[in-house]
């Protein structure tokens, strides 16, 4: 029983981070219809932004979170202007961008690999190895802090989308691009901003990931399927769905890891992705089969 509760707590503590990693992906798909396969490789950039200051002068990785977010938002704006804007009108846009972002992921991986080599890295602030104890159960501090920060960031994003004027525009574009354009929304600007926000989320997630998982440039192939699985489970484009999908899948993966062995824990995500795509491509909260 203790083992079961312990496993669930460990799974849920990771869920928050997965949710933050996936929310940017979901936002970008919702607004732009871009399946951003490069997302995890950009998260990797965020992780390196947090890693080097820690390694060189022991700067707290969480302080680097806003810096990573701003750097990646700038990268996002540039990428959008250079690459994605020109494609926005072409037919088969969505399919095309999958290949484009896939190529982008390789470019980022190659750059990071050339610059920093494929060594495993991790930041190790004190709290990353400590834990709170409640009777027999322990909660690792690093994962708990990271999850709390993730939830705060995602809540801020949700409030922004719900109540600000720009948030209205973004939601309108998500729901119906043509209608939003007719009503005077500058969809191109909305696309640019939401792409930048999506990548800022990736940067923030990267800073948090840096003290939770060990990372190296080519690890993003594994992350992409994990992230796709939770975003697809929740319904592409729905941020609430992504959060729920993240908690659900990371809890299940933790259970599988405890009871069947750690190798099969990652397999949970892959099989979940496969099954969800085939059984219910619109996910739990998607309204129409967008991807099918």
């Amino acid at each position: 029983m203790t083992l079961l509760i312990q496993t669930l707590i460990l799974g849920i503590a990771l869920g928050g981070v997965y949710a933050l990693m996936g929310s940017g992906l979901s936002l970008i798909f919702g607004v732009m219809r871009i399946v951003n396969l490069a997302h995890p490789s950009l998260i990797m950039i965020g992780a390196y932004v947090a890693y080097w200051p820690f390694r060189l002068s022991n700067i707290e990785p969480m302080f680097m979170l806003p810096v990573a977010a701003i750097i990646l938002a700038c990268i996002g704006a540039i990428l959008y202007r250079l690459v994605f804007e020109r494609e926005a009108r072409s037919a088969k846009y969505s399919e095309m961008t999958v290949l484009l972002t896939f190529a982008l992921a390789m470019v980022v991986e190659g750059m990071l690999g050339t610059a920093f080599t494929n060594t495993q890295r991790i930041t190790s602030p004190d709290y990353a190895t400590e834990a709170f104890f409640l009777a027999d159960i322990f909660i690792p501090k690093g994962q708990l802090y990271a999850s709390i920060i993730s939830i705060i960031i995602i809540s801020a994003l949700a409030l922004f989308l719900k109540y600000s004027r720009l948030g209205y525009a973004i939601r309108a574009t998500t729901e119906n691009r043509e209608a939003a354009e007719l009503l005077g929304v500058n969809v191109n600007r909305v696309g640019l901003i939401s792409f930048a926000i999506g990548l800022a989320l990736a940067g923030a997630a990267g800073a948090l990931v840096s003290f939770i998982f060990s990372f190296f440039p080519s690890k993003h192939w594994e992350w992409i399927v994990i992230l796709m699985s939770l975003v697809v489970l929740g319904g592409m484009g729905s941020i609430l769905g992504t959060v729920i999908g993240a908690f659900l899948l990371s809890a299940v993966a933790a259970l599988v890891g405890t009871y069947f062995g750690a190798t099969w824990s990652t397999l949970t995500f892959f099989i979940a992705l496969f099954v969800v795509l085939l059984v219910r491509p619109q996910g739990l909260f998607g309204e129409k089969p967008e991807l099918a």
Partner: protein
Amino acid sequence: MAELATDEILAARERYNQSIAIAVNKKRSLWFPYLVLALLLVLPALQLIGNFNYVIHLTLFTACYVVMASGWNILGGFTGYISLGHNVFFAIGGYFAGMIFARLDISTIIIAPLAGLVAAVIGYCIGLVTLRVRGPSFIISSLALVMIFRIVFENWEFIGGAAGLALPVNDLPVQWAKLPYYYAFIVMAAIAVWVSYKIKHSKFGLGLRAISKDEIKAESSGINTRLYKVLAFAVSAFFVGMAGAVWGEYLTYIRPNIFLIILISVNMVLMCVLGGKGTIAGPVIGAILIIAFNELFVATLGASEINVLATGLIMMLTLIFFPLGIVGTLAKHGKLPQFLNWD
């Protein structure tokens, strides 16, 4: 009176169709592929005057990718279903033939068609499931497939797990050691190109191209789209599996991280995209260019990470500026040189 008119119209249409067929035929230059094939068949004679093992290796490597890219093209180019997971069949072919070679000592060159068939059957079953979704969903599901197979292969002790299996080395003198594989790959490449030509010019190929244009309209005009695309998946898996079979023996070992790395399936996609998806000559040209680029980067820059970077950059630039690929873009502007017009 009315009947007579119909007959005349039908006859006129027949004549018109034939004149189009002849016009297309004139633009084709089928002598060129035959010439290339003939040159490739006598190329190993170079070994008599010196050591050209590197040339042989590069040609063999290119031929291997021609088989795979042409196979991929049947699904990705003709049918329009882009799969990033075709190296799964490369691994299935390699492991099936490799295991038989290791246990029963039957050369993989003989087993290759059988290995291709096994890959095709597995491809058929996978296709029945994954081809129900299209567009981005299909691409993502194919990525998930690679990850699933990678974990399974790495943990399956019977086939060697993550460490893989070493295969026996053949006992030919080093000068001629590559030749059996060389000829096997050249013959397979010729067959792959020929079969994709035949498919493109058959009713089956017409159906596949209709699916890639608009699947719903294709279905409503009486094409059994489900059967067609699953068959296309199986045929493309067949060629990729066959290439994998011989590739395993050529390398003398089989291991998940040789067959199931993402770079192999990316190369297949990139060759078709760069050469021109859905054309016959496209995958061949793409394979030659990409292998040449890779070799150049590895020779001049050394690191494999730069290779990943360069592959990604080439892919991005092609997708942004020439989404139709070399052959497609040239053909669109009417500037395709005759010797590349194999369609």
